């Protein structure tokens, strides 16, 4: 099964990368990293995936896709899919996933990840908390209850270290059975 990772900053991207390096997604099909630029004016703010150093993280994924051009001209923090049927197709095409796939997020209730959870109700959701305050200052949106219904077994927290030894990450995974 393909796996889509959603990252809104370098830290969540690194957290996903650490999980992959730790071998958590060895059995996954395609690994797609969806990056979102949540700056107040994304058009004027370089994305965190732009510096060439990001290549080390990008290399762990089969594909890196930017969210902003997909939902242009709307802002990722307030965008809502008006017509889910259309958007499901758009996202599948942009992400390059066809069959069922899993979602790995740092938070299931914060946009824009919450919107993907809503768009793909059948996708199993895994949560990797970002290592530090990367969370966005918006109230939780989206189907909290339905996400909780999709959470299966709680994994023990594990410590993993990023390749360059700079960042310690606490990872917590929810997996459906």
């Amino acid at each position, binding site marked *: 099964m393909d796996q889509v990772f959603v990252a809104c900053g370098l830290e969540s991207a690194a957290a996903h990368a650490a999980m992959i390096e730790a071998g958590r997604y060895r059995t996954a099909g395609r690994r797609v990293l969806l990056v979102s630029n949540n700056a*107040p*004016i994304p*058009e*004027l703010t370089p994305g965190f995936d732009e510096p060439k150093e990001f290549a080390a993280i990008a290399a762990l994924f089969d594909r890196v896709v930017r969210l902003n051009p997909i939902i*242009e*001209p*709307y*802002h990722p*923090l*307030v965008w809502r899919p008006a017509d889910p049927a259309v958007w499901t197709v758009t996202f599948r095409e942009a992400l390059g996933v066809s069959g069922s796939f899993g979602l790995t997020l740092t938070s299931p209730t914060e946009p824009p990840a919450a919107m993907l959870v809503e768009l793909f109700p059948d996708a199993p959701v895994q949560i990797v908390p970002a290592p530090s305050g990367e969370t966005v200052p918006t109230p939780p949106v989206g189907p909290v209850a339905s996400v909780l219904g999709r959470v299966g077994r709680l994994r023990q927290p594990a410590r993993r270290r990023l390749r360059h030894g700079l960042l310690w990450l606490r990872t917590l995974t929810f997996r459906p059975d």
Partner: protein
Amino acid sequence: MSELSVIVPVHNAARFLPGCLATIRANYRDGYQFILIDDHSSDATPQLIEQAQETMPWLTVLRNPENYGVARSRNRALEAADGRYLSYLDADDWYQPGHLDATLAAIKRFGADFVRTDHVRVDGLWRTIVEAPEPVRDTVLDPRRQFGGVGRTTIVDYPFLWAGIYDRERIAPELLTFDESLRTAADRPWFWRLYLNTESTVVVGLRGYFYRKDSNPSALTQAGNPSTLHFLDAYARIRDLAVASGMPHHVEQAAYGACRIVYLHLMKRERLSRELQSELFRRSSRFLNSFEGEAMSRALAALPFRQRLVLKRVLRLERS
């Protein structure tokens, strides 16, 4: 000689200038001239522009010796513009990267006098796509046929200067200057005159201009003051253009637009002092009565019942 000149009027815009300069930098190409005209700002604007010049030596920078207002500032910048094509940018707005290239390519492809685009209205994080009110796209149109008469809003009344690009080789220079006696809404009669005196225009579906609605101090949503009433001067200019055109349906459309804007200001009169409110009623009445009776009746007939009722009472105030 540049290919494209973009005029950026700036007044006490220090808060927005870093973003403005970033969008200019991102859209700059060889052959593009960006003219920043500082209308005698009293905040950090001059210093910010000076700093920017170190890394962007190609910026054309003008500073007014006193506060000229936006119309005169644009006219002064126009004298410094050496591009064949002309466009505008407001200091608090920004482009999608590549927007200027696409707009320039559009006017070159169609070879029209001017090209108009859609845009995105920004309110905080919220964005709304605003389409130019013309369903016919990517087709050369006769500007003089874009006046729709009463009952509908047409592209002539889409008063966004920056949602467009203008060919200075095809448009007479005097059509591009602004009426300096107007302190607000000078763009509205500017567009009327442009549409009345040019030969070709095209509307394209580009929407890479982000217009920050929440920061416009002259907007109707903002607090009222004595200059709020200056909108009447701009609409009087439109009336004069319509009358001079000799076309009855232009006069009707001008009357219709006048009714709508007067009604809008009346509905928002609470933001004005009592004296200004009665001034608004008196001057609005005098203004609406200045239209020829037949045109005004047709305009009124096209309005919703409630608006018609209110405006008829306003008309009675100063009927001679």
